[in-house]
């Protein structure tokens, strides 16, 4: 044990300073503006659409396994809960698509970054208009029989 015997002769090596970082260094929620919230929504809607597509590809593939099982699954899409779910899905896709175009403009149009805030509110405006056109039709479809 050379280290042990040496430690009697040589001064103990300086122990590293006792700085322990906390486990939760984050603090309050960062108060970002339109740009941050549009990104949060873009990611949430993107991931949501991804999982919907995954499930949808699987249930469609079911037709090759068993047409009866496929019909059973597809019939559940006709329930009101699924009808409301479709509204959420369309809302997510429309936001993601419109905001995706905004991001493309920020990246490729020279004045995109300058007008990003205006473009965000244009996205929200178009989103509301498109949903206002879609939701009443969908509700009639689901509940109107």
């Amino acid at each position: 044990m050379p280290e042990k015997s040496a430690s009697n002769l040589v001064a103990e090596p300086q122990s590293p300073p006792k700085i322990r970082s906390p486990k939760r260094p984050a603090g309050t929620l960062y108060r970002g503006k339109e740009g941050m919230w549009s990104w949060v929504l873009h990611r949430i809607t993107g991931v949501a659409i991804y999982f919907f597509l995954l499930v949808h590809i699987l249930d469609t593939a079911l037709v090759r396994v068993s047409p009866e099982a496929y019909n059973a699954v597809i019939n559940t899409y006709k329930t009101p809960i699924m009808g409301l779910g479709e509204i959420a899905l369309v809302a997510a896709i429309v936001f993601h698509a419109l905001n995706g175009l905004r991001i493309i403009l920020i990246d490729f149009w020279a004045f995109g970054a300058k007008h990003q805030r205006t473009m965000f509110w244009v996205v929200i405006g178009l989103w509301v208009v498109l949903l206002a056109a879609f939701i009443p039709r969908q509700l009639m479809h689901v509940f109107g029989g």
Partner: protein
Amino acid sequence: MSTAVADNKPAAAEVVPTFTATLMIRRFNPEVDEEPRWEDFDVELYETDRVLDALHKIKWEQDGSLTFRRSCAHGICGSDAMRINGRNRLACKTLIKDLDISKPIYVEAIKGLPLEKDLIVDMEPFFDSFKEVNPFLMAGPVKGGKERKQSPVERARFDDTTKCILCAACTSSCPVFWTDGQYFGPAAIVNAHRFIFDSRDEGAGVRLDILNDKEGVWRCRTTFNCTDACPRGIQVTQAIAEVKQAIIKGKP
């Protein structure tokens, strides 16, 4: 806004009115605390006081252990970026009267860098990213004549990004940087931009290569938090977009 002046003060000809503000400061002492904790302080302030003055008053008159960095106190050294009411700001450039003092003012360290004590974080990872982009003029011997001439138009091309004071307000406002500390971050890209678009510089290719890395400009998700946070008003996201375009085109 102003409150009655205390009776025991000498009746001077003109008494400068004061008001009381409450600061909620996120304290952390690595020697005793497991986790940071909030502590509130009431401070008597003038109209003209900034958050930095309030911190000074606390440190000098109430609790000497309060720890924060500052040097110039005039928005040029970049020492005192911190999160004030949830947004990255320089304490020395944030007037108390511009904040809502009917509620406590929340002050905490910037996010994404290791917290050392109270409002101080370890800035080394931030400066390491800065150094990696070669933030200096890269140019061979002067060709003809003695000077590296530059027209006003050429100078204006990168004027915005020369203003950076390396305060880290941008990088530590970036949601991508919070979760991925390896990301170069806006400040490093801003300082690369400053040389990439400098007509006298010959190292653009090297820098564009460095920033074409998976932890480079492509990590940027255009949240604009950096642009909103920059105390120098630099159009940070715009500068990042210009570097992205330069990488696509292969030249500035």
